[in-house]
Every structure is written in C-alpha cells, then in structure tokens.
C-alpha cells in the first residue's frame, strides 16, 4: 500500500515537473500611434452604449478615443445614450436619450455591464451576445479592420445654414456576390463635442465633453429594407431631407450611413461617416 502511495505521489511530482516545460510565447507588438491607412479595408462601426450617470463610461470613451488615433477614419464611433444610466441630471442642458437609441438598445441587446460597445454588430466567437466589455474592443477591432470592403458608399450632402435644411443623397454599390437577402440601410445623425454633465469617478463633471452623440435616425432604428434582388455591381440610390434643430451645432453634426443585416445575424457590411459641410 505504501509503495502504491509513493508511486501515486511520483505521478504528481512528474506532473509538477511537466509544468516547468517551456512554451513558445506569443509575440507582443505594440500598435503604432499614427493611423493605419488602407482604403481597401472596410470601415468599422463601434456603437458605444453610455449614459450621463454611468460612472465608468468616460473610461470607455477615453479608450475609444485612443483606438481612434490608431485606426483613424476607418473607425466610426457613435455614442448611444440609452439604458438605466442615461437619464439626464435635472441640471443637464441636453437629454441625450432618443427614441432611436432606446430602440437600438432593445434591438441589439442590453449589456451585462457598462461601458459596453458593439463592433460591427457582430457576434464574435465565444461571446454570449453582441455587447462587448472594454477589454475586448482592441482585439475585435483589429480583427474587423483586416476585412475588405463589400459595399461602396458614395454620399453627397448639402446644407443651407439659413433654413438649417440638409439634403443627403447616397449611392450604394454592391461589390460582392454574397446574397443580399435581409440587408437594411440605416442613417444616424450624430453631434460631436457637446459640453454637459457627466458622472465620473471624481464626481459629476459639469464640463464633460460628450463625443459622437447619437441625436436621431433618418431611417427606422432597425433600418430600411434593401431589395433582396440587389445584384453585384448594381447601384442603389437613396435620398433624405432633414432639418437640424436650432440647439445643435451644425459644425459638429455628421451622418453615419450603415448597411447591415437584419435577422438572427445583424452584421454590418459597410459604414461611412460624412460631415455636414458648413
């Protein structure tokens, strides 16, 4: 019996020694601080879910700002104020909550915690849902940044400062033979750089700079339908009219055009951001 016990202990000892076997480690290559420019690659949409009363959300916004330095214009960010933390303070100048934002949160799914963001509306392997915590963003951004464009988006925008009317004309051209069934077309209106109240770990910051805020959508929150017969090379045209509310800074407004699926999968096929010419 004693011999047997000693033999067993030897097995454990050998197992322990095996643990000291060296493995070949992965290579760590820090990202450069200047944008990686490659126009053949697709843009990436990051929908950041946030709120005035979300104390950890400024950390998420800072992380995205840093990633924007790396990916440049390839990274298109929209901050959606929705959910339990999005209720404004009584002293807030703006209510960033929108019906479209609430609908998007319902459509795309609630996060388990904040800050959270959805990247290209894609369910990544091993993930439970579309919502991704902050520590996952760099990995999936890098993965999405390698993909080639499948749809070409050309937009033309005019703006009349007097009437505050916007005319947006969009042409989309399919550049793939993949089936277009269930594709949708969404247009978001975003206002950048708004100073207002925000809860931070240091307390309420009354002069916080809110970036990339979703203000409205020109389409249904789930997108407008695209014909399933849309063929490779075919160009579809869409146009929109919109009047900017007086309170918005026209110079900070941009429009985000998104082509995405609308089924069990909601993957973004193409996204483009166009600034308002003022």
């Amino acid at each position, binding site marked *: 019996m004693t011999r047997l016990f000693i033999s067993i202990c030897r097995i*454990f000892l050998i197992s322990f020694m095996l643990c000291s076997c060296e*493995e070949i480690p*992965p290579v760590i290559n820090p990202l450069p601080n200047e944008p990686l420019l490659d126009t053949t690659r697709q843009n990436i949409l990051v929908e950041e879910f946030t709120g005035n009363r979300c104390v950890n959300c400024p950390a998420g916004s800072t*992380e995205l700002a*840093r990633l924007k330095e790396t990916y440049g214009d390839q990274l298109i960010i929209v901050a959606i104020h929705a959910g339990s933390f999005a209720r404004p303070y009584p002293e807030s100048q703006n209510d960033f909550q929108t019906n479209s934002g609430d609908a998007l949160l*319902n459509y795309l799914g*609630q996060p388990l915690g904040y800050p959270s963001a959805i990247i290209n509306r894609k369910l990544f392997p091993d993930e*439970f849902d579309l919502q991704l915590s902050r520590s996952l963003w760099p990995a999936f951004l890098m993965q999405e940044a390698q993909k080639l464009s499948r749809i070409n988006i050309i937009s033309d925008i005019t703006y009349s400062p007097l009437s505050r009317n916007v005319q947006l004309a969009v042409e989309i051209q399919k550049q793939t033979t993949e089936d277009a069934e269930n594709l949708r077309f969404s247009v978001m209106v975003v206002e950048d750089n708004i100073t207002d109240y925000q809860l931070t770990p240091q307390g309420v910051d009354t002069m916080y700079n809110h970036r990339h805020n979703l203000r409205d959508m020109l389409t249904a929150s789930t997108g407008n339908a695209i014909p399933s017969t849309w063929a490779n090379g075919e160009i579809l045209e869409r146009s929109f009219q919109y009047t900017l509310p007086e309170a918005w800074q026209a110079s900070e407004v941009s429009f985000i055009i998104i082509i995405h699926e609308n089924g069990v999968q909601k993957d973004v096929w193409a996204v483009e951001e166009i600034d308002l010419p003022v």
Partner: protein
Amino acid sequence: MKRIIPLLIVFLCCYLSVKAQNNGGRISGAFQAQTNFFIRDSLIGAANIPQYDRQLFSADAWLNLNYTNWGFDFSLRFDMFNNSNLLNPTASYSDQGIGFWSVRKQIDDLDLTVGYIYDQIGSGLIFRAYEERPLLIDNALYGIRAQYTFSPDWTIKGFTGRQKQQFDAYQSIIKGINLDGFLLAGEKQAISIAPGLGIVNRTLDDNSMDALVAVINTYNADEAFVPNYNTYAFTFYNTLSVGAFSWFLEAAYKTEDAMIDPFGVRNLDGQEVVGDRFINKAGSVLYTSINYASKGLAITTEAKRTEFFTFRTRPQVTFNRGMINFLPPMARVNTYRLTSRYNAATQELGEIAFLGDIIYNVNDQIKINANASNIENLDGVLLYRELMTAITLEPEKEDWTITAGIQRQQYNQEVFEFKPNAPLVETITPFADFLYPLSENQALRLELQYMHVGEDPAVEVGQDYGSWAFALAEFTLAPHWSFSLSDMYNVRPGKQSPTDENDNRLDLHYPRVDLSYTRNANRFALSYVKQVEGVVCTGGICRLEPAFSGWKFEITSSF
C-alpha cells in the same frame, strides 16, 4: 457531429425507457419549468428590456432523464430558454437542446464517464464543474473522466475536456488529476485524516490568445506583459477529525495567468483611467475551517486568504462566466428578505476573510445563534462585516415558536457592485419570525423586519435605497397548500431610490403574493412579484439583478 451525438443519446434513452420495465433497468428523472409574465413598471426600473417592451413572456425548463442498466448510467437533460433573462438579467436569450448528457460505466475498480461531467477537487479552489440554475451557471466539463479506486480508501482520477458554454463549449482545454485518501489512526482509531492532492491545467486556445495579445498591444510598455498559453493550479487539502472536532485545510497555488482587474489603472495619453485592465499574476488561496459539534453546541470558524486567484476558461470572460474554480463565500448565508439584501461576493483578486458561528441550545426551549464575519481586501480596506445574533424560543407547554434577532452589516458597495464613490453601506436590521400552529395541519407564520440604513453624507439621504420595512404572513395548509403575502416598503428612500420627474425620491411598496400547491412529487407555484434591484447570490456566486415586476409560475416534478 456535435448535434448528432446527443440525438443518438436521446433515441437510445427513448428506446431504453420502453424496454426498461422488461429487462431490469431503472429510469428516473426530474422536471423544472418556470415562466415569467413581465408587467412594465418604469418607476421601479422594470422597463427598457425586451421582455417588458415587447416579449412579455419568458420560459425556462429543464428535463432530466437517468437510466441505469447493464452496469451503465445514462443521463440526459433537455434545456429550453425562451426569451430568458437568466443568462443576462437585462437581455433576452432563446435556445433549446440537449444541455447535458453523460454515459458512465464501472469496470471493476475503474469508473469511466464521458459527456458532460460535474465534479470538483477538494473544496473547489482549483476546479469545480457545477450548475446553479438561478444564475444560469452551468460549468460542466465536456470531456472524459477516469477514476480508479486502488484501495477502499484511496482514489485517483484524471479528466480532460472543455467547459460548457450554453449549447456549445469554450475552446480552451482543461485537464486535471486528483488523489483522494482516507486514513484512521490513534487508539480505537478515533482520529481520521482525509488528505488530497490536485493539479489542473488550462491551455488557452489560439483565438483567446490572439484576442488577449491584441489588447496587450494597445498597452504602454510598463503595462504590457507576455501571457502564457498554459496555466497550472495545484492544491493540497486535508480534513482531520478528532472526536467532536474536525479541521479542514486547503492550500492552492496558481502559476502566472492573465486576468482582468476591474479596478485596474491605465495611463491613456497622460490621463489615468480606472477600469478593466489585464494583469499577469500568480495566485494563491489558503482556506481553513474548524468545526466543533456536541450535544447542544455547534461552533464553526472559517478563514480564507485569496490573492490573484481568478481562474477562467479564457481571460476575457467576466462576472460569473467561464469560471473553472469556486472560491467558497465567507459570509453567513442569510435567508430573511432584508438580512439577505446585501451579500458579499467572493473577491477573486484579493481578500482576507474570517467567519465564526455558534449555535447553543440553552435547554429544549431556548436556542441561541451568534455569527460574525469580517472581509477585507489585502490592503486592509473593509469589504464586508456582519454581526448577527438570534434567539429562538419554543415554550414547553405552548405550540408556538418565535425567533428574534438583530443583524449589523457594513457593505462595500463600491467594490461588490462596481459603483465608484458609493459609501460603505451600514445597516442595522432587527427581525422576528413567529410560527403559530392553528391546528394539526394548519399553521400561520409571521415575519417582521426593519432595515435601518445609514446616511450618505454627500447627499444627506440614506445610502443606496435607504431604509426598509418588511412584513410577511404565510398560511400553510399541510400537506398541499401554502399562501403568503408580503410587502417590502422603502420607508425612508435613499440615494438610489426611484424618483419622479422632479427628482423627488419616492417611498415605494414592493408587494409579493405566493400560492403553491404540492401533491406527491409535483409542485406548482404562482407568484405576483414586485422586486427591487439587488444582489442575488446562489452558492456564493452573486449577480446584480435589476428590478422585477410581473407574475411567475413554476412547476417542479420528479419521478
């Protein structure tokens, strides 16, 4: 292929169940189903999730089937989730399929299991595969296990597989080996020891490693590290029993492993940002418990020191997902509504905790219970402290029983609920429980509790949700019926209490009505519930649950 194996098992079980009565086999099982009907109540925060907005209904169900014959044990479980809020309490999850199957065979002293396996090493510090349905934790190992009993008192087992992830499995490979023994010593063999050793290894899959490397690549040079594919965890444990005393000790060590520090500090362009950050640390846990039990007296003391002992199937998963191990909680498991409102979840990255519990029967009529627990982080910051004492009276010539007591808690909400700058919640909660038999099969039970919550000096109102009163009346008509009515009243609203459009805090009621009917092995329960947001813990694992408003219906059955 992944889908075919469970289907084959289903057909096999169906076939076997038909044959069961004729060839000496035995079939058994259990069924559990729960449905929720959601009624939107924006005031308490029961809103803005798909179930309240459009789905209105959710259902979760589990059917277990077990069949034993020819020395084989077959197990199968069908799981169904329709618009379920169990996986993520603020989202909707739908899927169904074979959630568990296993085949087990005993060949002399060798015990073989394939399929999904629930098991643990020691107290679970380095490995525990288990299921907790209320939080939809199902960490079964999908693989094989071989266990050999080489003497009546000594067993060795080895296992390998991947951890279950709903109806799929994570890609990382987990493997382990475990030796368990039992020895008697001393005169009349009054002393026993039950030693054990265990080693677990997790090999990170390429996708997880690539994702981890991509994040580390964004770190500054002083924050970056080179992660390991392989992480090893070792444990030694022993239970020493001498007469009325028993002493359990377990020590575990884990090699360097990447893990998320939710309070990590990163320097982003000169700005310090607090939040999720990967760190690469070796970890350890030391856990001990000493128990004494004799007629009329039971004493339990426990202590635990934890340092960097997050052990997950992949470092990216958070909350209660992908856990390979289980760190036992060190706070009292409270059962009353208000005394259980604040729970201390185990802190994997670092805590030092003590717990003491005494139950003393003064005589047949009087029983006294006292409990104390204290949890701090490794820097000495208080995380949780609880003092509780209760007395139970059962007068000799009377039928009624009364239990009365008081609880004092200090709860670090900032750490447990990730709410920066939240003050230490301080509560004092007196409670009373009165049981009065009305007849041989009828009984009335009354509960009264009041939770006084300290003031948050920054806003000059009560901390968190402020103070609460709770009352419950339960009528039992044995053996079939039970009916209860309760109300939790936010008597002095606090900082987090719901507000009206003018930001005035509201003193809301959260009523609940329960009706249950039990007949033989079947139980039906119907409830109307309004429930405030709070931390829900099951088996030491905790999660912040949002408010609930609506109806619940549950069926449980076994055969």
